[in-house]
């Protein structure tokens, strides 16, 4: 049976959660604040073994396979049975709404190395959505008013962070073009060069999300995170938020990190070839030396809204506030704008040419 941790307020016994404003644990009932360390120690000290054992007895047998990918927890506050995905690491009890953390999920080697705590709260995410919808001409007018927020949740998304050293040997063919006039002739001189660049470049903490639940577009578009806020992982940070365990392992995610590292290496080396009119890479030999891989949890606000029966998903960087998401286009406005610009520019261009 998986273990379940609920952080109880040492003052009033209420379930406490991580507060993104104060960056501390805060009891929503009596407003008392606690240091993460203090709460951790308090919990360890007051953990009476066997306290809830009587509640933890399953009363029916599952047939083989039926339980795959599913876990059952018992809420420590109300005793309600919580059925969750095997990768869920933090959630809220559906009966009493108390924030809970499935501590067992981060046992052993699966424990995250780092975490960036939430900096922006739920209201911040809501107002970010409103702001995001403003000033977008092609967005249907009714979208801002009619779309309903179906779901808004703060999720700690599992990420793999890759350190990597790239060794590159790249050859380019480049040309310089010079033209001059002599008499009735225009001379064009093309000088051809072979360019060789050999060197190294290092990358630090290239993130790849390790959760299949999180669409890659939504997780990559809100990058980058400010790694300066990285702290050592403590389960207490998860209280009050959702959290998932990775379901794509470090090896499988590495491919994506390498893609991006390769591209950046090529771009950086290309930038050292200056003063030419054309530069074409002829051969690129990039060797990647993988370094440290870290497992980290990043704060993401996920918002789902419904508009005209369709779901629109948004994500916001819970640390920097970067907000992304795809929105519908107002077809009428789009073609209206198209026709307007077309007519306007055509008329202007016609007038200028006819008058000159």
């Amino acid at each position, binding site marked *: 049976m998986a273990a379940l941790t609920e952080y109880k307020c040492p003052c009033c016994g209420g379930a406490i959660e991580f507060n993104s404003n104060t960056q501390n644990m805060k009891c929503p009932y009596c407003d008392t604040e606690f240091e993460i360390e203090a709460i951790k120690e308090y919990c360890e000290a007051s953990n009476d073994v066997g306290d809830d054992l009587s509640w933890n007895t399953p009363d029916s047998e599952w047939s083989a396979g039926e339980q795959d990918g599913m876990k059952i927890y018992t809420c420590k506050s109300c005793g309600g049975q919580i059925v969750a995905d095997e990768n869920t690491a933090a959630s809220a009890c559906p009966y009493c709404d108390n924030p809970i953390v499935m501590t067992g999920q981060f046992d052993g080697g699966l424990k995250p190395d780092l975490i960036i705590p939430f900096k922006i709260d739920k209201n911040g995410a809501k107002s970010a959505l409103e702001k995001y919808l403003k000033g977008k001409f092609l967005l249907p007018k009714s979208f801002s008013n009619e779309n309903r927020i179906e779901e808004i949740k703060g999720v700690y998304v599992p990420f793999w962070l890759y350190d990597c050293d790239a060794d590159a040997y790249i050859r380019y063919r480049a040309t310089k073009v010079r033209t001059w006039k002599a008499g009735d002739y225009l001379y064009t001189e093309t000088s051809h060069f072979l360019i060789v660049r050999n060197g190294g470049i290092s990358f630090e903490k290239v993130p790849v999300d390790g959760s299949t639940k999180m669409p890659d577009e939504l997780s990559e578009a809100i990058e980058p995170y400010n790694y300066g806020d990285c702290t050592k992982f403590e389960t207490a940070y998860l209280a009050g938020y959702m959290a998932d365990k990775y379901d794509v392992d470090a090896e499988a995610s590495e491919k994506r990190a390498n893609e991006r590292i390769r591209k950046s290496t090529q771009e950086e080396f290309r930038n050292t070839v200056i003063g030419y009119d054309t530069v074409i890479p002829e051969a690129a030999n990039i060797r990647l030396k993988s370094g440290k891989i870290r497992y980290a949890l990043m704060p993401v606000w996920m918002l789902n809204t419904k508009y005209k029966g369709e779901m629109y998903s948004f994500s916001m960087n819970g640390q920097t506030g970067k907000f992304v998401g795809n929105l519908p286009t107002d077809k009428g406005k789009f073609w209206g704008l*198209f026709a307007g610009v077309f007519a306007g520019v055509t008329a202007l261009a016609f007038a200028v040419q006819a008058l000159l």
Partner: protein
Amino acid sequence: MKIKKLFSVFLSVIICAALTSVTAFAENADKVADNADLLSDSEEKRLESDIMDIIEKYNYGYDIVVVTVNSTQGKSPEAFADDYYDYNGYGYDSEGSGLLLLVDMGNRKWHISTKGKGIRAFTDYGIDCIGETVADGLGSGDYCGAFSDFISLSDKYINKYETDGKPYDIGDKPKNYAVIFLISAGIGLIAAFIVCFAMKSQLKTAVRQVNARSYISKGSMNIKYARDIFLYRNVTAAKIESSDGGGSSTHTSSSGSTHGGGGGSF
């Protein structure tokens, strides 16, 4: 006796020639010299009076001459027209300004020779325009009509030069509005695409990253080996097509004076 008679005839011919040439110089000779006999007397008179009206209109600033011949005596139309103008004393003011239209019926060629202010008032493009109209008339046998067109177009171009200070040139070319419209529509289409897709891209922000630039360790890039090796160079030459910038081209005639002009066939 015989020799004496011959001599006196010769002398009188010379005197006559000298006299006519003097009178020719004084009166600037015939404005319409219809050597090929293309016009009736009344037509010739009417054209001549039209020309005189224009000459007076611009205060003897430009001479206007129409010459028709059956042969240019082996000269090119250009040389013949220039010489005819120079040696018959045409042209007003200190520069000998004016223009002459030569029609060579033998080779079915026309040529317009300009001089002095005429060079400046009649650009190559202007002469081409006149020539086009005149050649149409000549080709269809309407000689009088062709010469009338020549005279009225000359009036028009001189008038433009005198009032604007700029001659009728390439820039006055009647515009092809269909082509202008197509070009404008093309520009409009490109602009509309750029604007609309820029606006639409605002609505699609959930896109994957392309690189890992944000994660490059600062100052970690080191180039161990960098060479820019010159391989070879090649040079190509392309003849510059003289861009038609308008204006008047000139040349020097056998008399040593500067003429402009142009010609063609009909």
